[in-house]
């Protein structure tokens, strides 16, 4: 009886050992895709890498940064790129993000596509200029009860070329709320001429990994890694009346655009509607008033949707959509720059179109 038991245990151990060896061999052969070559934009850049990782990660390791807001989990749909050959079948996890036209056009979600062989990839050429920056926190200021202004000095490289209105991705390092680095996108509020310093306005998202880190853990003197610049939200070169609308931290890219105009002496007609709930949600009022003095064609209209009694608010009151509606007439030859909550942007687009603004003249930076 005892002998049979020992033989059984021995047999089990032997089978387990054989299976473990098979798994190790499989890992190093079936799962080993060897060296692969990735050609970007018809050979403008070539990368030699080891296969086996997602395309997003493989490109990042070669200093080619595709924006992603979810850290490669396939839940933001931002990291799309065209893979002209070598991609294989579309993964089920990509399907919710791809339209029929995109599927036909070989668009893929780079975080879900595993690199298994040579690829031909097409990305926005501007992404080839995106860099990763080591930075130091030199400013962390409370603008409101839930918005902080974060200022970073660029250490390496020590300058960034960007357009007013663009954004960067901040890397949140490992801390008690995350076991791996997490990336989130934030618009820059600084002026592009300040090449060595960038500034952002970051609103606390409940339980948000990155915003909680910035609001509750980050200190002046800490090191941070960012990559950028990204984005197509910037001032177009014409003389149309600019209707700017923002709420909360949506102030950031518009501040950058307006300060850039002041610096360049562009006295284009611009009206800036800024919505908040009560006075404690307003910020940079003095700076905007100064901008009105410096740029005679600029008007700033802050509006509160529900001012507190102690606010003694004498300015505009109501939802920002109603304020825009009341202050504008024919907008058929104007253009709009919107930044803030997707709900605000969708509602504002309806109002702007009601006043005759062509949809092609409405530019927005949705937080979604």
């Amino acid at each position, binding site marked *: 009886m005892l002998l049979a038991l020992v033989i059984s245990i021995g047999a089990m151990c032997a089978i387990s050992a054989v299976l473990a060896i098979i798994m190790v061999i499989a890992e190093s052969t079936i799962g080993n895709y060897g060296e692969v070559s990735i050609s970007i934009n018809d050979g403008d850049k070539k990368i030699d890498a080891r296969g086996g990782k997602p395309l997003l990660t493989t490109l990042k390791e070669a200093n080619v940064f595709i924006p992603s*807001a*979810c*850290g490669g*989990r396939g*839940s*933001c*749909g*931002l990291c799309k790129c065209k893979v002209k050959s070598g991609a294989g079948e579309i993964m089920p996890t990509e399907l*919710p*993000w791809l339209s029929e036209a995109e599927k036909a056009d070989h668009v893929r979600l780079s975080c879900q596509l595993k690199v298994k062989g040579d690829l031909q990839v097409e990305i926005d050429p501007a992404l080839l200029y995106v860099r990763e920056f080591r930075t130091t926190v030199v400013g962390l200021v409370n603008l409101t009860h839930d918005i902080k202004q974060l200022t970073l000095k660029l250490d390496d490289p020590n300058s960034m070329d960007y357009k007013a209105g663009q954004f960067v991705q901040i890397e949140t390092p490992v801390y008690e*709320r*995350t*076991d*791996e680095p*997490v990336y989130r*996108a934030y618009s820059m509020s600084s002026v592009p001429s300040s090449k060595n310093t960038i500034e952002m306005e970051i609103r606390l*998202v*409940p*339980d*948000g*990994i990155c915003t909680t880190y910035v609001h509750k853990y980050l200190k002046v003197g800490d090191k941070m890694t960012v990559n950028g610049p990204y984005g197509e939200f910037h001032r177009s070169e014409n003389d149309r009346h600019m209707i700017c609308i923002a*709420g*909360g931290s949506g102030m950031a890219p518009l501040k950058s655009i307006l300060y850039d105009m002041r610096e360049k002496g562009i006295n284009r007609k611009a009206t800036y509607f800024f*919505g*908040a*709930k009560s006075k404690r*949600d307003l910020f940079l009022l003095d700076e905007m008033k100064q901008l009105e003095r410096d740029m005679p064609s600029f008007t700033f209209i802050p509006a509160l*949707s*529900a001012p507190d009694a102690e606010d003694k608010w004498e300015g505009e009151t109501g*939802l*920002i*959509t109603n304020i825009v509606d009341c202050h504008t007439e024919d907008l058929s030859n104007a253009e709009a720059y919107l930044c*803030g*909550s*997707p*709900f*605000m942007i969708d*509602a504002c687009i309806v109002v702007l179109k009601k006043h005759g603004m062509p949809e092609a003249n409405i530019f927005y930076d*949705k*937080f*979604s």
Partner: protein
Amino acid sequence: MKQTVEMDKVQHNMRPGCITLKGLLGEDKRNLVDILIEDEGEVIRLGTSHKAIAERMQELRDSGVEGLGESITIEDRYDVRVDSVRGLLPCPYEDGTVQKTFIQVHNRMLKRSITYTDLHIHMIREHGFYEGKGSSFRLSPQDLVEILDVPPSCM
């Protein structure tokens, strides 16, 4: 009730790194079926239903959207802020995706707050799932019923 093969797959989707960084189960090591049974018992004890809870969450969410991303007062006693961040989240039960919308509700009378998402509303309404114990986004049925004033209902 027994844990089915389908539930195993759903529970796999709820693990860290599948849909969200930290997953939907927290420190809860129980089978999904046991988590569901316990929460269902709690909801019955509170004299309401998953559907009634989800409908109340949805009602406040839809009213809060009118604040266009800022907090607004609803029914003279709730401060509600509804906003979105970039992206969609798939349901672990693989029956659709929802926007990453979060809803912050502060009940002035009780001086208590709760934050939930569109995914919570969907998971509670369709699957009776409130996330595992210890999960950062776990919602206790009792907190929901008390803070949102969920009306009594039959299961």
